[in-house]
């Protein structure tokens, strides 16, 4: 016979309520429930919670390779706040991320629209457009390193020798403007197929009747896109933008291979700065502080977008 929870001390009441709840759901095997969730709880604690907490601790230390960490509180964060190189890396990271994601969004929508229209060899084109996404980033970046090379690169060769558009080659990776544009371009090239394929899946799920009804009501193609297609893929758009923002913000390979953050720090983004601080300067505490510095801002962005998405779904 069960004892009423109200008659137990508070602690026992809570555990009793939890146990009771689990017992109600799982029946006589409720003890097995604990057994089953223990591994995943341990896994999350050991592989996520512990490293994350330890990282926060290390970011508040002066930690050099081979020496024990010395706790310095928020010194690393304060120092970074006033560090010109760090400030430029923050600005560059936002330019790189939002520049890339914006273009990927537009190109992704165009790709999806083209692939939903009646074109010949649609499957073939879908496969071709997916190549940048499936190719290993390192391979793509190394290819672009060669393409952008100022004196031996194929891009300058085409522009100067073949098409004769320019009198002299451009230092694509050596000028501040073109270097940032080049790394953004490679990120766009690599990332837009993910947008396109995701939007394509979303568009295919929109009932054809909606388009027919809109057409009957005299809606133009643009109006059908605005009032049927866009609302139909809105949730997918939010998820894709959210994911891509996180991935692009943390993208290391493209920038590191193409410019290593140069020239003169003009393409230095947060992941590369983290890497350079950890392995170049070998200041591990400060490197983790660099990595964690913008975590709250990213977390807020994710929470806001996730809430917006949930609200939209409720409506």
């Amino acid at each position, binding site marked *: 016979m069960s004892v009423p929870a109200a008659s137990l001390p508070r602690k026992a009441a809570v555990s009793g309520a939890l146990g009771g709840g689990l017992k109600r759901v799982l029946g006589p095997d409720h003890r097995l429930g604990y057994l089953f969730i223990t591994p995943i709880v341990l896994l999350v604690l050991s592989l996520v919670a512990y490293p994350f907490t330890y990282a926060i601790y290390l970011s508040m230390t002066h930690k050099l390779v081979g020496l024990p960490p010395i706790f310095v509180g928020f010194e690393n964060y304060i120092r970074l706040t006033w560090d010109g190189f760090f400030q430029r890396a923050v600005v560059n990271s936002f330019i790189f991320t939002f520049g890339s994601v914006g273009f990927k969004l537009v190109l992704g929508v165009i790709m999806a629209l083209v692939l939903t229209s009646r074109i010949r060899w649609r499957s073939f084109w879908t496969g071709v457009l997916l190549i940048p996404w499936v190719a290993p980033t390192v391979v793509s970046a190394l290819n672009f390193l060669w393409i*952008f090379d*100022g004196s*031996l690169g194929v891009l300058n060769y085409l522009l100067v020798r073949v098409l004769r558009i320019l009198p002299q080659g451009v230092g694509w990776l050596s000028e501040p403007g073109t270097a940032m544009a080049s790394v953004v371009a490679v990120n766009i090239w690599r990332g837009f197929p993910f947008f396109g394929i995701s939007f394509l899946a979303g568009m295919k799920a929109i009932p054809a009747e909606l388009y027919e009804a809109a057409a009957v009501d005299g809606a133009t193609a643009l109006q059908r896109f605005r009032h049927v297609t866009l609302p139909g893929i809105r949730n997918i758009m939010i998820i894709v933008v959210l994911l891509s923002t996180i991935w692009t913000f943390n993208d290391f390979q493209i920038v590191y291979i193409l410019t*290593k953050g140069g*020239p003169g720090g003009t393409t230095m983004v947060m992941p590369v700065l983290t890497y350079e601080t950890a392995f170049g300067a070998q200041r591990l505490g400060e490197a983790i502080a660099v990595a964690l510095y913008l975590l709250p801002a990213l977390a807020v962005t994710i929470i806001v977008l996730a809430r917006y998405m949930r609200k939209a779904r409720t409506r």
Partner: protein
Amino acid sequence: MDSRLSNLAEQLAAGLMARREFLRKAAVITGGTAAGLDVLRTMAHAQSGPKLRVWLFKSYVTAGNDILAKQVENWAAERKVQVEFDWATFGDREQKFVAAIEAGNPPDIAEMNYQGPMRYRPALRDVTALAKDIAGARGGLLPYADRVVQLNGQYFAVARLAFGGGLHVRKDLIEEKGLKMPKVYDPDVVEVAKKTQDPSKELWGFGQTLNRSDDARGFLQNLLWDYGGSVWDKDGKPALATSNLKANTAAMQFAVDTIQKHKIQPPGVMGWTDLHNNEAFMAGKLVMTNNGASLYYAMGAKKNPLYDKTQVILTPGGPAGSFFFAGAYNWGLFKASKHAELCDDLVRWVEDEKRFEEYMSACSGQAGPVYKKRAEHPYWKTNPNYEGMKENIVRSVWPGYPGPITPAAVEVEAQYILADMGGRIVTGGLSIDAALKEAHKRVEDIHRIRSRG
């Protein structure tokens, strides 16, 4: 699956055995097998001798890498030691050291670059006796190499070699124009470059990036010294934008002028990494470039037609003289090793003069001397280009010069502070004065942080 376990499983499935009985018997079988395997493994270890983890550096001079690996293997066979090799490259060396040291699992012995002894000192064994013994038998260490491997009289590594290098010059083009080999950057290099280059044919006089790279770091460091400046003063205090400001400004002005005023560098040079000047030189697009011996080696190995048309000369100088830093590679012996004596023995084995000679002869000038007697080896006279490389090394100074070498001086090198400064001027539009002050602040930060320990 073990046949005994299969039988048990079948009996369980047929209802001939209780679950508890199955678990008990299965535990006995698996536990017994595991224990047996462990005993066998221990016996195998006991028979095959101790195991040594050796990290070597994979340089671009592959013939040298092969010889060194073979020498280590021969030593292992002779001493009945198992050797587990791993290779570090320019791209992953520091990452591997950091990860291994932080994980408490460094190799027993590793080939390190000049930054190793200062940076990984806490994990390295004091090898003063061994280092002095080896150096003593070879006429003593050259001054720059001595400073790289020791701090306050304590040796943290055993010096091995220095990467030779110098100004690689297209002697055919110089001779064609009736010019002399340059001795100073300004005006010699500028004039030779202007008179030999032909931008319409994409041939540029000088190829020397100021972008984040080892090439830029080395070039700018040498240039500051050439003009009488330095990052540091004689006491080892930051002096980039203080007592050395005037000389450093003149040096940086020259570096920037090669791109912006004299226009002797190819477009895109500020986007170059360490490999770009090698590729451009080998493709016949440069008249002059500073580089390590690996460029000369690669041209020979690939039978590049420019190999015979290339002369490697002393790195040019400036108003205060001609300076150079040759990074001394060395053996780091880690405290965590349980085989200290074997590590010492291995170092003595590979540093044996006959074996080093075999290695040096395959390295096309890259295995430069760190010991006085090795600098006198006849090998260096077998090719005029080798002699240029060797002379560069013999006169080498050290990071931190004119002050002492310190962990902070090494970190300024490792963080590409000077290369970043060059980039900020050329591509960031900063004035030389502002860039020097910005870099000086970074150097002060490093000095403050590294002074803590």
